[in-house]
């Protein structure tokens, strides 16, 4: 038998995904399309927030949706009804999207004139935090019924997101959710994160979120192409 030798590898397990993700971002920078990866637990309000955002912006921006929420035939019908371009990704029961799946979605949308693309990621706070989708911004939704301690249980997701939307604030008076406590936890995990408090049901706070979207699209269009 040959002698056993030790071979150093030191290679990132996700190096392939990182390459594809970077290619996607290059492509988005060239077409000046802001792609936002929307993540949350199932039922936090990803589809509801998409519908609100599309409603507010569809007359001024060209919007596309890459839909990957697993049990969402109904959801994708709702999205299709808004008239924006959309593709439904078959995730085959996957717990997250990676960059090559998103690439298929982007190819499927096939429209370089889009200003804004939302990815509705698979409903899950663990796995999507681990995989770079190639999006320009990572947004996460936390809804009031989930509780204010989620940053302690799922810190990775909160460090990855650039923007946090706290949804279902119409429930806040009947819950023990403390917004200060949440903000305290989040600020330790992520100093740069922007936080919005909204209700997709009553519409409260949606304007501020939509303003942020509008501003982000405009900033991205003006950013220099690298």
């Amino acid at each position: 038998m040959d002698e056993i030798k030790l071979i150093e590898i030191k290679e990132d397990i996700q190096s392939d995904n990182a390459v594809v993700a970077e290619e996607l971002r290059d492509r988005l920078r060239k077409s000046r399309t802001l792609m936002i990866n929307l993540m949350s637990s199932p039922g936090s309000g990803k589809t509801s927030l998409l519908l609100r955002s599309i409603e507010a912006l569809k007359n001024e921006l060209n919007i596309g949706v890459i839909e990957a929420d697993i049990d969402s035939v109904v959801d994708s019908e709702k999205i299709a009804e808004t008239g924006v371009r959309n593709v439904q990704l078959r995730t085959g029961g996957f717990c997250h999207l990676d960059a090559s799946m998103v690439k298929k979605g982007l190819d499927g949308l096939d429209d370089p004139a889009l200003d804004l693309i939302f990815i509705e990621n698979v409903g899950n706070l663990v796995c999507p935090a681990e995989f770079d989708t190639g999006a320009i911004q990572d947004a996460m939704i936390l809804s009031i019924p989930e509780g204010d301690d989620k940053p302690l249980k799922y810190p990775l997701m909160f460090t990855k997101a650039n923007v946090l939307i706290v949804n279902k604030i119409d429930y806040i008076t009947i819950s023990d959710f403390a917004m200060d406590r949440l903000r305290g936890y989040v600020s330790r995990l992520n100093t740069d994160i922007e936080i919005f408090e909204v209700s997709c049901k009553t519409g409260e706070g949606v304007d501020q979120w939509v303003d942020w979207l509008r501003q982000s699209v405009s900033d991205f269009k003006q950013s220099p192409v690298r």
Partner: protein
Amino acid sequence: MHELPVTEHILNIVLKHAERNRVQRVVSITLTIGDLSELENEWIQHYFDYLSKDTIAAGAKLHIERMPIVIRCNACGQTESIRKDQLGQITCSKCGKSDDFSLVSGREYYIKEMEAQ
């Protein structure tokens, strides 16, 4: 969980390095994974055995080396090792600040080395 696609990546990388080093058989593989990531040891091995069946990595034993979560206080430079659920509640034990930390370790996700013959 996503152990299956992750294991696929691991196998591909291992086979690439095996070929590069002209080895006949891979005996063991060591992964370095930060404590911020969830990865089930048992499942990785299970999937690996299945996926590597007809390759020179068949039968290789996987070891996972866990890296602790270590943060640095940017106000005073103090570093501390903490548990995952402490991350959102941390206050610097030296200067008392609690709003400006960077992660020194805990996000590792790579293949460190392999033994082969």
